[in-house]
């Protein structure tokens, strides 16, 4: 499925306190493409993703989905704070989206178990999430999103709270699952290496109000894995992106200190 964002703008607050979080964001994403969105903290990345997910209305602009619709929902989102329900066991969490679609229990367990195998958690299927680590819970959230077979997968810094090693492993796992399913993915991150490793294209956002600064094609051959991080083309790309985003990060930091002084 193809997705087009046209002039997305979002204001928060009312009257004098009204502030613009994202401003005039327009872009297209092709079927099967992995798009990363990179920007300084507080630039409205999450807001943009929430608008695309339909969890929030834009102040102006529109989101247009077009093309082939498959059996699943239009989008499934993996949240920053994974949002795995502690009151359900692992498999019921993974099957939650299917349950909401009315898939019978046996069927949704079969499908969920299949995805649990893929993220290496099948033997924890009937355990409770609080018995597992944060990394494992984030894998549950990813399996939950994939298993509904959405046309577009939205991921909001899903690995942000993980330690570096776990993050590397999950990034590679995600790449593997993605290459098997060729889903359209929008992946929000503030980690340059993560964006290069995962993305086909990279959308760089300015500091708040977030606008599109530029869209960079990563152009590194797939399949990719973390060992590529020391290759010249990876390092060049990292520099290229850092040069693009550096001024935005500095601006964001100045705004922060400015606020602190007020």
């Amino acid at each position, binding site marked *: 499925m193809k997705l087009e964002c046209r002039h997305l703008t979002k204001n928060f607050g009312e009257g004098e306190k009204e502030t613009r979080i994202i401003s005039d964001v327009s872009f297209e994403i092709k079927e099967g493409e992995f798009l990363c969105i990179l920007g300084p903290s507080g630039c409205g990345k999450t807001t943009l993703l929430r608008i695309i997910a339909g969890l929030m209305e834009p102040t102006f602009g529109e989101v247009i989905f077009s093309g082939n619709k498959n059996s699943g929902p239009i989008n499934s989102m993996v949240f920053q704070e994974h949002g795995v329900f502690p009151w359900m066991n692992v498999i019921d969490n993974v099957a939650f989206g299917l349950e909401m679609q009315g898939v019978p229990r046996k069927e949704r367990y079969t499908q969920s178990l299949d995805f649990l195998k893929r993220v290496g958690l099948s033997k924890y299927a009937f355990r409770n999430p*609080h018995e597992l680590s944060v990394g494992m819970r984030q894998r549950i959230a990813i399996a939950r999103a994939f298993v509904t077979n959405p046309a577009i997968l939205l991921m909001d810094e899903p690995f942000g709270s993980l330690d570096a090693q776990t993050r590397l492993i999950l990034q590679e796992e995600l790449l593997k699952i993605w290459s098997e399913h060729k889903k359209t993915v929008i992946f929000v991150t503030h980690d340059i290496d993560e964006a290069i490793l995962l993305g086909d294209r990279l959308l760089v956002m300015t500091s708040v109000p977030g606008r599109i600064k530029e869209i960079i094609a990563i152009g590194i051959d797939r399949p990719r894995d973390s060992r590529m991080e020391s290759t010249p083309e990876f390092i060049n790309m990292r520099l290229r992106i850092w040069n693009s985003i550096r001024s935005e990060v500095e601006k964001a930091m100045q705004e922060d200190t400015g606020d602190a002084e007020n």
Partner: protein
Amino acid sequence: MTLRTDRVYPLVLPLLSLMGLLLLWELCGRLGLLNPLFFPVPSLILLRFIAMLADGEIQANLTITLFRLFTGFLLGTIPGILIGLLMGASEKIRLLLDPIVAATYPIPKLAIFPLLMIIFGIGEFSKIMAIAIGCFFIVLINAMAGVKNINKVYFDVAKNYGASKGQLFTRVILPASLPMIFTGIRLALGMSLIVVVGVEFVSANYGIGAIIWNGWETFEIEKLYVGIFLCAILGILFTVVLKRVEMRITPWFGHLAYRDQE
């Protein structure tokens, strides 16, 4: 080996301190350090307890007290939980009912007991209603707070996966607020013990409250203590049983891995 001591200590140590206190009391009494008019020694109280048990006085009074307590408790908590959940989930219902709750909640429940006797007569129903009203507000306020404190990400997940209003309620709102509902239930059980004894002081021929009151009126100090000890034992039993149930139903609550999220 360590496992054994780990399991034995939590059982033995609290008992040890209780036994020690009773022993000290007995000793001081025997040595004439305590006025037996106010502080009869525990062994005498125990003898009285056994005598009252033998002639069935304890059983008869305990039965009627427990009947009042649990009938009132159920009559108050069930609607309290339901209305509390609704008030937490719906802003409109909250705005509608909050003023009534805020105005009536602070009234001490014993203060309206005479009014209840006028309305419902001096039989069982007025006593049960006093307990029910006491429980109602406590569980209502806790259930409402339980819903309002639910992490927003759980609502996002439910919405993103297309949960209907009914599914949102049964799969997210109700289980997510269970820990707070339990807090309400625990407080309500304590409250029902207070209220049942209070109303039995005033208008009952039977019941634990009546035992204590009777002990005061006839100056049978041991009998009075038997009543007080019965209250203490009931209080401890309620706490222990509820803790067990709570651990069963909400095993994730207070768990380190989820504490930062709730």
